[in-house]
């Protein structure tokens, strides 16, 4: 479930660098750097304008305003804003890319969720993304977790 209270979200500040996996049970805004994997399958992930991500991202919805090198997987929607830069493959039922955004990779909007992307960031933007059907409405991942490394700025 997504966070119930408005503003109930974690923020990785612009001075924070995380090397490793990030998981959690709340929405997340990333303004810093992350290298590894971001897995918040039931929550919203926002890569802010200052965010620099070299990782695969899994979320309920994913918004990119900064830079991402890796595959994006969302249960609901992926949105790349005009300031966003993405090099990787994206999979979601709905994908929007604003004019001015930079994107290189594949876009898969079939109404089925693929298997989780590999742990590391996309080695190549055109790397194939395997697909596997899931039950409609089922979360993409069930694993609970927490922010394992790095700091959080409330």
């Amino acid at each position: 479930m997504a966070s119930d209270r408005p503003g109930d979200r974690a923020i990785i500040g612009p001075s924070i660098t995380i090397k490793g996996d990030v998981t959690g049970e709340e929405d997340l805004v990333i303004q810093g750097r992350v290298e590894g994997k971001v897995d918040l399958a039931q929550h919203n992930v926002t890569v802010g304008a200052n965010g620099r991500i070299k990782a695969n991202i899994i979320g309920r919805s994913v918004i990119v305003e900064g830079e991402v090198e890796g595959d994006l997987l969302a249960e609901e929607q992926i949105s790349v804003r005009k300031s966003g830069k993405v090099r990787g493959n994206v999979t979601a039922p709905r994908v929007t890319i604003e004019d001015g955004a930079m994107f290189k990779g594949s876009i898969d909007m079939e109404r089925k969720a693929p298997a989780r992307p590999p742990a590391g960031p996309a080695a190549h933007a055109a790397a194939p993304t395997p697909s596997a059907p899931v039950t409609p409405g089922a979360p993409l991942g069930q694993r609970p977790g927490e922010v394992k490394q790095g700091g959080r700025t409330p």
Partner: protein
Amino acid sequence: MHWPFRRNPAEGSGPRREFTQAAEPQPPLYRSPALKALVARLPDEAACSILDLGAASGANIEFFSRFRCRIQIADLPDALAGEEVRSLLRTDAEAAFRRILPVDREPFDVVLAWDIFNYLDRDQIRRLATELARLCRPSGLMLAFISTAKEIPEAPGDFQIADEQTVLWRPRTTAQRPSPRLAPAEVERLVAGFGVVHSVLMRHGVREYLFERRHDPGPVRR
């Protein structure tokens, strides 16, 4: 160069005309028979795989989403702007295209080449077409706009699909350069792995092509 694109319907006579004219100028729209022919050939049921050589466009992604398409964005205008690729293109065009073209899990059904051929020399066109033929399934389609005008914008433009027969063209620069002005026979010879299924010269000096990948692309000329 002037591109007398289709007039915006809102520019017609009417009580609100003065407000329409006072608004920000809209990017030009033009009718695209080749796009219409392409869309008519897209399968209704089966999902298809599209390789877009242009820059990512939200409008194009949304348009093709209704056909359950998987879209691969190659953004050749961006890739070709890099000095490393341009240098490699001059010395080994085949290697350059293999580097910047994606490899999908299955062959592509459609290639959107837009105006990219206008910005390559003849040998580069031939090698790019060879690579695209390799990446496409037999009977795969390719949409291309090739200028017959004297000049073209200095860089490839951005194309957005407005509807199934209308394209919005947004040049990235006002600077001009000479156009290669490829004749139809020469285009057919350079794009040897594909056959022309639709070709129409538009009033704005662009010849639109819809190609179909041959079942047997023939020997690849190196």
